């Protein structure tokens, strides 16, 4: 670490801000009455955010394509999850697939 003080400042900023996000949602929900359709909409929002997170962390590295090995591993994991395989099997299959492909020289 080049500048420990600045890195700690970044760590504390991220910690405090993340806690604020977590704390404010339930508080706002209590103050404002939400109709049922709004709840459904917000649930859809959470799923969409997570799907977007899967796409970006599974397929991209920085601003570009992550190569084929990682998406292939995630795809195998996704198929196993869809077939209701145990959680750990899904995660380990994803890692093993990616590792084997890299071993074979796939980027």
């Amino acid at each position, binding site marked *: 670490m080049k500048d420990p003080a*600045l890195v700690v400042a970044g760590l504390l900023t991220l910690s405090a801000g993340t806690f604020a996000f977590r704390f404010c949602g339930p508080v706002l929900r209590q103050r404002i009455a939400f109709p049922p359709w709004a709840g459904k909409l*917000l649930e859809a929002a959470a799923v969409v955010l997570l799907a977007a997170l899967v796409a970006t962390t599974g397929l991209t590295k920085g601003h570009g394509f992550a190569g084929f090995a990682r998406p292939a591993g995630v795809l195998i994991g996704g198929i196993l999850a869809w077939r209701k395989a145990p959680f750990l099997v*899904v995660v380990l299959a994803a890692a093993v697939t990616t590792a084997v492909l890299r*071993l074979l020289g796939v980027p």
Partner: protein
Amino acid sequence: MGSIYRTLSGGALRDIALACLAVWFIGLSYGAIAVASGFPLWFPAAQSVLVLAGASEFLFIGIVAAGGNPLAAAAAGLLVNARHLPYGLALPDMTGPGRPWRRLLGSHVMNDESVVFALAQEDLPRKRAAYWTCGLGVLLCWPAGAVLGALIGSVIGNTSAFGLDAMFPAVILALIVPALRDRVMVRAAVTGAVIALAATPFLPAGLPELLALLAVLTTIRRRPTP
């Protein structure tokens, strides 16, 4: 804890335990990557407890290791973590009446896994039991994995050779598969993924996921008016 075991079905408890085990494994890779990127051991340990949100921690480590400003890395992490605000709006009250520390801890253990398991349960007592069990489990497993990973990080030189980077997206994907019950949700999720991917080359890290929220609009059109 006794009431939690009675409230949750064996299947739900097993799924939560496996999710926590997976979190522990990802924590291993996170700690190892952090140390391999030049961070001291205490850093992934402190970050895993204080932030307790894997994607943003990987992002922070990655940006700072690449020479980025730590405050910019924190801003990127906050963009990724902004999803916790709609989580809180989407969930019914998970803490219930109680002392302030309960509400504070209840907020801190809100994460992707605890929210998904809570949403999957049918009634409020089960939602609360799933939320707390998974949330506290992640609070234990994520830092434990991170510390152990940091300790063995110097042994494993090249973490990408072990496919550890495929674990995080696989975990999140496995978590949202049950929520993709109907065509409307599938279309929204796919649209969101496409928006995020299309935006990634042009926007700073964290923004593509937030832009993907536009995909929620696809669910409104199809829903009958209330």
